[in-house]
């Protein structure tokens, strides 16, 4: 029995390793996706933080009415005001300018006489594209700081303690560990990446060895041999599982390497621990088995490769939703880790964020996937009825 299973497994692997299209879809795309995912985030963060620190020039109307203090405070944070000619509000509305200031004629006088000076800040968060909108944010904060400064001066002039108008001094202390800070992105991306790898990585071969073989007209010739249904199904499942393990291992190691080694922007102390990657692979393996079985169940009764791809779409959606749920919803009960897809992805998400995973969560997530895989395999054996499969509707 085992010799036939191994024979089918070996043949399916050889066949699929020679299929360039299949290899690209099963291995290369998840790998590139993982690397892109890992590199893209730190680069984007770096661009955003650099952009936020860049000197900016803000157009202003009525600059002659501004106080020198305000101009000096803005200069400290590298914001330079320049006189604008034309309709500034329209320019900001049309996103030609990210922000603008309008000083009314009585601005300086009102500030100096202790009144409430109106200052119009024009903003358009859509200006500057995905990473734009920093001019207005910096302007807003700086003007707010200047405002506090003026208030303090006025209180001191009247011999009043500025603390009178500051009943609460908020002292924010960030207690997140460097691993947690580094893992915030990974906590969301790793569960989603796992779901993506397992559906895409095994999809092509799972369909190829079932619906694909039927469409090619070779399945009948296998089923007339003494190989039993169980042997055929097990051999094929082993091949699908083996092929899925390749992108699973490569993509996670690629993700880790890309995010930790290729990125010059990430601080040393925020590296993603390699143990998280090992856990992701370990928890991902039984989950891969379950998703492989589910894909085979869906494709075993379809007539063609195309039909099977359509039939597998709800599964891909389900896995993605499960992974997304795990990325954003922390399990409230340890038994929730038993839920296939959600449990495994939640373990990875929690580990990636540096959080402590409840005792038994890893074992429960593995058990959940394995139980689902066994039940799925039993269903697959029942569905793998040669007469209905070959000639049924």
């Amino acid at each position, binding site marked *: 029995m085992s010799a*036939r299973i191994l024979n089918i497994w070996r043949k399916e692997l*050889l066949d699929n390793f020679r299929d360039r299209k299949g290899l690209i879809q099963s291995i290369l795309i998840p790998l590139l996706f993982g690397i892109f995912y890992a590199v893209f985030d730190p680069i984007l963060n770096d661009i955003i933080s650099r952009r936020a620190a860049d000197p900016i020039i803000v157009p202003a109307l009525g600059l002659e009415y501004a106080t020198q203090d305000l101009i000096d405070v803005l200069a400290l944070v590298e914001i330079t005001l320049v006189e604008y000619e034309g309709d500034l509000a329209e320019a900001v509305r049309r996103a030609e300018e990210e922000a603008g200031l309008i000083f009314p004629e009585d601005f300086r006088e009102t500030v100096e006489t202790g009144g409430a000076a109106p200052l119009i800040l024009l903003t358009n968060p859509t200006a500057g594209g995905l990473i734009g909108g920093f001019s207005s944010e910096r302007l807003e904060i700086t003007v707010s700081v200047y405002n506090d400064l003026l208030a303090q001066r006025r209180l001191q002039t009247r011999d009043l303690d500025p603390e009178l108008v500051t009943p609460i001094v908020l002292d924010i202390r960030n207690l997140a560990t460097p691993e947690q800070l580094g893992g915030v992105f990974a906590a969301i991306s790793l569960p989603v990446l796992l779901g993506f790898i397992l559906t895409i990585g095994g999809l092509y071969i799972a369909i190829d060895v079932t619906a694909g073989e039927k469409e090619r007209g*070779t399945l*009948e010739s*296998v*089923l*007339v041999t*003494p190989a039993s249904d169980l042997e055929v199904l097990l051999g094929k499942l082993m091949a699908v599982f083996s092929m899925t393990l390749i992108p699973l291992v490569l993509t996670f190691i690629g993700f880790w390497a890309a995010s930790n080694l290729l990125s010059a922007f990430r601080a040393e102390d925020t590296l993603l621990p390699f143990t998280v990657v090992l856990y992701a692979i370990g928890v991902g393996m039984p989950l891969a088995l379950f998703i492989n079985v589910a894909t085979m169940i869906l494709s075993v009764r379809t007539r063609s490769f195309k039909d099977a791809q359509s039939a597998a779409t709800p599964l891909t959606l389900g896995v993605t939703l499960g992974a997304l749920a795990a990325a954003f919803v922390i399990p409230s009960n340890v038994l929730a880790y038993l839920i296939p897809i959600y449990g495994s992805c939640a373990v990875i998400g929690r580990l990636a964020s540096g959080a402590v995973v409840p005792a038994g969560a890893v074992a429960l997530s593995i058990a959940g996937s394995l139980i689902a895989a066994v039940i799925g395999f039993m269903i697959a054996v029942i569905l793998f009825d040669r007469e209905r499969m070959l000639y049924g509707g």
Partner: protein
Amino acid sequence: MIEVTDLVKHYGAIRAVDGVSFRCGDGQITGLLGPNGAGKTTTLRMIAGLIRPQSGSVMIDGRDITRDSQAARALLGVQSDMTGVYPRLTPREQFRYYGRLYGLKGEALEGRVQAVIEQLHMTEIADRRAQGFSRGQRQKIVLGRALIHNPQNILMDEPTNGLDVMAVRETRESIRQMRGEGRCVLFSTHYMDEAERLCDSIAIIARGQIVAQGTPDELIRRTGKENLEEAFVTLAGGADGLLKSEAAQELAR
């Protein structure tokens, strides 16, 4: 030897195969002839163990294809009408794959693979991937994988269908060679001249039943016709019978 006894297969109200019985002896070529929809392919698929009959039995050298399925299938080589091959594998790799499915290994396997390659004159293409092979070359792979375990009994569903003249001649020669080796060959065909030339015995199936069985000469004599084609049309129920069979096939779909 293949023995088919009272084989029945219904699809709803359609009696696709309705009590078919016949026998194919060793060292003989038996032809299963019938119009489209007569139950020919369903019968062959039941013999191959791909379809379960509602009743009746198929014995391959004394082994029941339903009750002792694995053992019976090991004694049978099947060349189906599906000529699909694995395009990314060479014929040699495909023969090895099927050989192992039939339980062959080691030197015995390699010996059989080489023997089949030589028998089917495939030496030049044996190590080329099957992508782009002609229909004739693919048909050789299909035949080769049916013969890889050196079976005593061979089942062939329209083996010469769609082949060019040279490939047809080669296939017919292979069938004769199998008979010469003492094997039991059961095959279906649409070509009356092929059946007349090759077959030692012919079973004619129409509307799911065997309506006549005998040597080509016996069938011609029995109907008083000049050739097998005329005899076949008469035995299958005339033009009306052929049409009914085709209508039954449509309903079964």
